[in-house]
């Protein structure tokens, strides 16, 4: 099959197809994932080819979807569950946090719950309330869960394979506004480990750390900064739990400056954790405090305001300037 250029949504679709073909225990579950192929068509065609026994249209009940997926996993299945939108995960939050995350520990290792929860997340598509949120920190904070987010088609494909094959529950955040962005997927590649960060662009003056939808913005910011003679490195974290702090440390020890960018509110967000740990690890290397760019401590605004709310090129470049000014 070698290399194909695919949009992220299609890469995930191909990955789910591969998983269904390779392992009869893999199931797809969620609202509208069957006949419709998902509201973003990520599961398009799977129902037709694998049938309702493998691709399960569920009642409209998020706690029920995750709770029954746990039961199916206890029976030896490997469910891949779709939560239709980020803001709809909260009815299932209890099952995810009190059951899915903790049952392995509660059972002293006797129970494994290989459940993947796919959540299309983030803004930028002009949606209504509850369709644009970035709740990754709420999940990364919970021991027992792994949290990842691809930023390109190759990662979208391979990280899904790894998430399904692993024995831990994984929250797989899909950057919905990048669903249609195309890039190469090498189907014969040996993928990087699921939680390994990737240097998306080399640089020497400052490190931008991001994941999911913000990687693209950071790459654009680095390109713009280069025009002003500044060499900005971009690290795509790929995983928010665990975070590859070793890779980040290597980058920061080289560039001596770090700006963390995410769509989620800055307050108690992933950036806070990264700033604290990198400060501990790189205190004597840093030339400036770790800065954060992200959402505000406010509900995600109506669509007409989201461009103000979301970190864009200008806000990222402003943070780059502030960091370099120290």
């Amino acid at each position, binding site marked *: 099959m070698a290399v194909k250029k695919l949009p992220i949504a299609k890469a995930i679709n191909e990955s789910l197809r591969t998983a269904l073909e390779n392992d009869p225990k893999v199931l797809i579950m969620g609202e509208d994932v069957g006949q419709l192929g998902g509201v973003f068509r990520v599961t398009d065609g799977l129902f037709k080819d694998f049938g309702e*026994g493998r691709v399960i249209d*569920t*009642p409209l*009940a998020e*706690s*029920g979807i*995750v*709770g*029954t*997926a*746990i*039961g*199916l*996993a*206890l*029976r*030896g*299945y490997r469910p891949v569950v779709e939560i239709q939108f980020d803001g709809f995960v909260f*009815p299932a939050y*209890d*099952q995810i946090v*009190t*059951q899915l995350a*903790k*049952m*392995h*520990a*509660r*059972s*002293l*290792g*006797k*129970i*494994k719950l290989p459940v993947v929860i796919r959540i299309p997340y983030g803004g930028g598509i002009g949606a209504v309330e509850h369709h644009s949120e970035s709740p990754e920190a709420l999940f990364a904070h919970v*021991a*027992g869960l*792994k949290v990842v987010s691809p930023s390109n088609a190759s990662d979208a494909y391979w990280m899904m394979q790894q998430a399904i094959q*692993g*024995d*831990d529950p994984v929250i797989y955040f899909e950057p919905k506004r990048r669903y249609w962005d195309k890039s190469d997927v090498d189907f014969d590649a040996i993928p990087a480990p699921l*939680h390994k960060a990737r240097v998306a662009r080399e640089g020497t003056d400052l490190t931008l750390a991001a994941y999911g939808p913000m990687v693209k913005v950071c790459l654009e910011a680095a390109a713009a900064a280069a025009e002003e003679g500044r060499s900005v490195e971009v690290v795509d974290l790929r995983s928010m*739990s*665990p*975070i*590859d*702090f070793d890779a980040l440390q290597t980058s920061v020890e080289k560039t001596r400056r770090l700006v963390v960018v995410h769509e989620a509110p800055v307050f108690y967000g992933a950036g806070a954790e990264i700033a604290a740990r990198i400060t501990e690890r790189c205190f004597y290397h840093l030339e400036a405090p770790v800065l954060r760019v992200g959402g505000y401590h406010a509900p995600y605004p109506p669509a007409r305001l989201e461009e103000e709310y979301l970190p864009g090129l200008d806000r990222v470049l402003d943070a780059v300037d502030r960091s370099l000014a120290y």
Partner: protein
Amino acid sequence: MTVDSTAARKPRRSSGASGAAAKRAGTKKAATKAPDEPQLVQLLTPEGERVTHPDYEIDLSADELRGLYRDMVLTRRFDAEATSLQRQGELGLWASLLGQEAAQIGSGRALRDDDYVFPTYREHGVAWCRGVDPTNLLGMFRGVNHGGWDPNSNNFHLYTIVIGSQTLHATGYAMGVAKDGADSAVIAYFGDGASSQGDVAESFTFSAVYNAPVVFFCQNNQWAISEPTEKQMRVPLYQRAQGFGFPGVRVDGNDVLACLAVTKAALERARRGEGPTLVEAFTYRMGAHTTTDDPTRYRADEEREAWEAKDPILRVRTYMEKEGLADAAFFEEIEAESEALGKRVREAVRSMPDPDTMAIFENVYADGHALVDEERAQFAAYQASFAEEGK
């Protein structure tokens, strides 16, 4: 055998309709009840009198009956011992099942080995039926673990503290059983308070839609900590099943025979691929919700006294004595066994080792996690620093 979803409104068939009932007509009375009394399936009255029911009949040997009695007495003894151990400071907390022995032993003995049980945190009697060593149930209450047994050794899932969560796990598991083409069934235990939870309603929805082989066994013990059932529901609980499209039945939860018969019928129905059943075992929690609670603040003594007259163990004993199904030697033997169990439990709890400190970091993830590894190493180094100081 059929499960009647509309029992409260449908005229009953005459007791002679069932072959088994007809066979017994000479020796047993048909149950009679006032029209406003809740519709209960009953086979053994509080007075220890054997009665018949047209839909649920059961034929037990004297040995089997003695076995049920033994299970109930030993479960009660275990429960009493655990309550005492909590009072003595050996357990941090205990959730007593006192009064619910018939509901748990009756339903528990209806199960086949390959059935799977999803309990709440009070199913000590069901655990007993599944062969889980009772001392293993105490680890979580002593604070040495969150489980204490391998769920797959006895097909008995770990206790679930969050109210109603396990009903969805049971439903998902049952969906898997159906996918596998197996003919085993799944049973989910929960209480009357849990019936107010969304997860329970969602499990009803999913199990009905996917025709999952699951039995929902609700022990309506009348109180959710201090909240009476009137604060949880306005219609009899078993009737709720009808709205989801599967049968519900209310059984006398203090009648071990009726609980056995009704659960067996529901499990068989599930095995036949006919989907879920809701069983409401109408019973009473004689003690507190847990040892932290004080029921004298919210309920009257008279209520407890009224239920004491319906004691599930006493009625079996009365029946056995009356019918000559057990002699004094049997009851003495059970009493001695009971004492031995109490002693064993007491000793096991007192000698239960604290977990290794490093257990904090064990089993957080199946495949490992860099942060856990880092914190484990930091913690180990911190611990080791004390040893060095001590040199």
